[in-house]
């Protein structure tokens, strides 16, 4: 016999979705995390330990989606478990198939939005804040050390947190209509919007960085060649970066170290 799910159960499951990758492994990916996240709901649906353990075992299978959107699948699976506990003929395979059918498009839409677009945008907004917020005058505290990281956190979480906090409840409510649920999330539209915002912010960053960091070019004497030489390290870093990102995609640390080494060689020469 199952009990009706309560708002607190959804909140507990949503909170546990924040730890969904703690036991990430190549064999099951987020499978163990999914079981951990859905457990507060299973406790309510299956008060007896035997069926509850069997239900948990069902949800430890392979599972992979975007961590921000995992709550929608947790809610949908909880709805199926509830119907099954009420006596409807829902098989293990059908629960697993529903989870996979929802998890794959959520990953395909969530990865570009959150990892590829929004996370770099949040970082750029933080750096842009450093250029936009004026440095402190004498006697006033430097608030940039607080505001720049805050800009990163707010930019990302203003978009991601509503999905994370409402995911389980919305997945439970709309789980029977997965296509409508996916459309209502507007992930693709938001990705396009933030892609444009990222490119716009990059243009602004170039102008602001160029105006604030002129490396003494504006005050340098001599001709154009001498002024251009002042920008040589910047160009060298750009060339090493461009070649590095082309040769080693996905290895920003190695590219940065290569740029540092190239800068070291140039510094030894000057």
């Amino acid at each position, binding site marked *: 016999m199952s009990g009706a799910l309560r708002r607190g159960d959804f909140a507990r499951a949503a909170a546990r979705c*924040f730890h969904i990758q703690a036991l990430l*492994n190549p064999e099951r990916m987020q499978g163990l*995390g999914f079981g951990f996240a859905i457990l507060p709901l*299973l406790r309510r649906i299956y008060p007896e330990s035997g069926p509850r353990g069997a239900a948990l075992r069902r949800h*430890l299978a392979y599972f992979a989606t975007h961590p921000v959107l995992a709550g929608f699948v947790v809610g949908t699976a909880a709805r199926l478990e509830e119907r099954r506990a009420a006596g409807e003929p829902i098989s293990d395979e059908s629960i697993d198939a529903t989870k996979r059918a929802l998890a794959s498009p959520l990953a395909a839409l969530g990865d570009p939005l959150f990892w590829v677009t929004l996370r770099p945008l949040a970082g750029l907004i933080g750096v842009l804040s450093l250029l936009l917020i004026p440095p402190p005058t004498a006697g006033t505290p430097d608030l940039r050390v607080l505001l720049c990281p805050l800009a990163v956190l707010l930019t990302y979480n203003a978009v991601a947190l509503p999905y994370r906090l409402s995911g389980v409840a919305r997945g439970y409510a709309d789980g029977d209509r997965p296509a409508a649920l996916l459309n209502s999330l507007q992930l693709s539209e938001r990705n396009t919007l933030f892609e444009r915002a990222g490119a716009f912010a990059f243009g*602004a960053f170039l*102008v602001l960085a160029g105006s604030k960091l002129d490396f003494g070019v504006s005050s340098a004497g001599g001709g154009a060649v001498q002024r251009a030489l002042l920008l040589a390290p910047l160009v060298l*870093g750009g060339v090493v970066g461009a070649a590095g990102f082309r040769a080693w995609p996905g290895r920003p*640390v190695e590219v940065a170290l290569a740029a540092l080494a190239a800068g070291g060689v140039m510094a030894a020469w000057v």
Partner: protein
Amino acid sequence: MVAELIRVSLLGGIVAVDRGAGWSLMLSQPLVGACLAGALVNPGPEWELWALRVPLMVGAILQLLLTDPALPAAQRPRDTATAGVVGSAVALLGLPRLHPALAVSGGGILWVVIGVAAGLLSAVAGGWFARLNRMAPAAVARADALALSGAVDRFERLYWGSVVRTFLVGAAWAWGGTILFLWAALTYLPKIASALTARRAGVLFATLLGAGVVAALNAHVTGRRRAVRWALLGAFVTVFVVRGLASAGP
């Protein structure tokens, strides 16, 4: 220094959980980690100006350099989460200790370069260290067995244990990495102090910035539809606004 190292290691644990356990609140971004480390490490009242400025610049450069649009699964396993924390802590803890040998000049750019270098090396070594947190297949089998036997409480304890483990690995690396790179800085930098001029630090800083700009270009413009158009629009609007503000000023 012990109290500062404890604070740095706690911060390292938090950013490791943010990155590794799925919090994904962006506390693990280099700019955030570096600034938080700057707030937690206090080199003393006479260094107050640098205690805020150096972490900001270390964080901003690392943020630009380490912004990679590739999916996490496509990236090399580098610990970019604690890079900002370790880089910032090494710069701030090394600054007062090396001051007689390495004078602060050029707006502290030398210490920004040292912090960025420490952060990058820490990302590589931290990636190796983080392999300690890889889950053994036996733990998967144990979780299965616990679920099958209905021992869900023990399954939960196993799971919470893994969260704590992620925290401890991150904290241990932030602590050990800071000590390791601080030791390296205190040992080797005085030997090359005469070569570390403000001009050379400026060259290194500009090179890193150039690579950072290209990294940002790679993340926000390359391969994205109509991104060049939007970047140009952003640049024009900023020029227009900056000029407008300049002409309206006193």
